[in-house]
């Protein structure tokens, strides 16, 4: 045992060596330097992410993919297409075409911001942009409803078409509200879910109302 306890180093031998820790493989660098890849890869990656989120909205399960990697491309595309389709539905010909687009845009974004602030103030654990992302993506069913309404209105605008449009819009409104509730209500304390769901209900109700009362010229 005497030999084992002797850990001293004689003083005339200089102590030297490398203190640097060998860095791991270069893969973290590869993930961050997406500057060198072709543009097509970047676009396809973003498009795939957006498409995956659309699928998540249409089949709302409690997955966290929508929440984790938020992006606002999908909401922007949906908002612009909805606003374009809702344009030109007022009684006047020229001057109301402009405000209609801006109106829809402002309603969607302002409403989403208000709901996000409300859910944060009520003690939610979700971040600002995640909430905006979810609310924007859940406008997808209503955009589909708008498309269907436009097609139905091409066929005719009688009572039957109104009933069909009413049913479609109500169904899509319910789907939107349920989808966004499935993602957002989990981040709230359990006894306050109703307080968060009501503004979301009102928000999608206003959008559905705009879609239902749309009449082309």
């Amino acid at each position: 045992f005497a030999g084992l306890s002797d850990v001293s180093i004689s003083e005339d031998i200089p102590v030297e060596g490398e203190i640097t820790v060998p860095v791991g493989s270069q893969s973290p660098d590869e993930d961050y330097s997406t500057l060198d890849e072709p543009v097509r890869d970047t676009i396809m990656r973003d498009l795939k992410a957006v498409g995956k989120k659309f699928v998540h909205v249409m089949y709302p399960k409690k997955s966290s993919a929508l929440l984790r990697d938020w992006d606002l491309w999908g909401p922007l595309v949906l908002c612009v297409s909805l606003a374009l389709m809702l344009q030109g539905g007022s009684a006047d010909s020229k001057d109301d075409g402009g405000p209609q687009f801006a109106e829809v845009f402002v309603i969607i974004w302002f409403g989403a911001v208000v709901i996000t602030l409300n859910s944060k103030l009520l003690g939610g654990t979700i971040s600002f942009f995640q909430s905006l992302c979810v609310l924007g993506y859940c406008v997808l069913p209503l955009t589909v409803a708008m498309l269907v309404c436009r097609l139905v209105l091409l066929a005719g605008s009688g009572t039957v078409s109104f009933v069909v449009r009413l049913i479609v819009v109500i169904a899509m409104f319910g789907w939107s509200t349920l989808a966004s509730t499935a993602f957002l209500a989990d981040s709230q304390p359990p006894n306050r879910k109703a307080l968060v769901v009501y503004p979301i209900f009102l928000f999608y109700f206003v959008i559905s109302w705009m879609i239902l009362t749309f009449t082309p010229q």
Partner: protein
Amino acid sequence: QGGGSAVIDMENMDDTSGSSFEDMGEMHQRMKEEEEEEEADGEAGAAEEEDGEFLGMKGLRGQLGRQVADQMWQVGKRQASKAFSLYANIDILRPYFDVEPVQVRTRLLESMIPVKMINFPQKIAGELYGPLMLVFTLVAILLHGMKTSDTIIREGTLMGTAIGTCFGYWLGVSSFIYFLAYLCNAQITMVQMLSLLGYGLFGHCITLFVTYNIHFHSLFYIFWLGVGGLSTLRMVAVLVSRTVGHTQRLIMCGTLAALHMLFLLYLHFAYHKVVEGILDTLEGPNMQPFQRVARDIPVVSNAILNTTAKAVALTL
């Protein structure tokens, strides 16, 4: 390094020549940058030598002053960042949103029941969730009413008008009544006033929701007096219980009652279609069916112009 050490060298309590507040800030910044450079490049030796030389130039005399100025700089910076995070934070609104759904429902129902005890100051919950949701609901109902009555808004949009009207009423009348309360020495805070008026809009929401869908004029008047009157009475009773003196009570309650009832009347008549033939006016059914009220003034004036021109042409 002046900022970190707590030891003050008493030998150097002389004048603090060469160190000012701004210089201290600059020095601090430079030292921080030098520290960062140190970590990145690993040139620890060179930086330390520079530091030693730098302090040596200022000398030991102003060291106390330098330390004090450095601490003042840090405290100032901390205070500024604290103030910024305080005012740019939505957490100041958080206590006003701390409610349970049961409480909201209770308060909604209570807003229609006038209190009897006006000699004892009534409690008002300073909560903003219920009033905010009620204002948004009123906006939605107003939008529905405007759409079904084909209101044509010339300058502006439907949504802008609805939001502007409702929020303008809530914030504007609350501020005005709060100002009157300040003049009449009533015991009410701004948040409480906002809360009270917001919950008073519950009656408006119910009335408009019913009467925008069922177009009976006498039904509207019944709802106006009944539902509107109840919510106004509640607000008035709460205010009376918090004001002292007959004149003051009269001023505040008269103003609030007038504004609240008139607002409901305005909302009904400004944004609601008068349907021809379904009117049940007080004059009885012998009156000719009321013509549709044209909102479109230029069209009406054009029509009048055309008819008069035709009449004039016929007579010529």
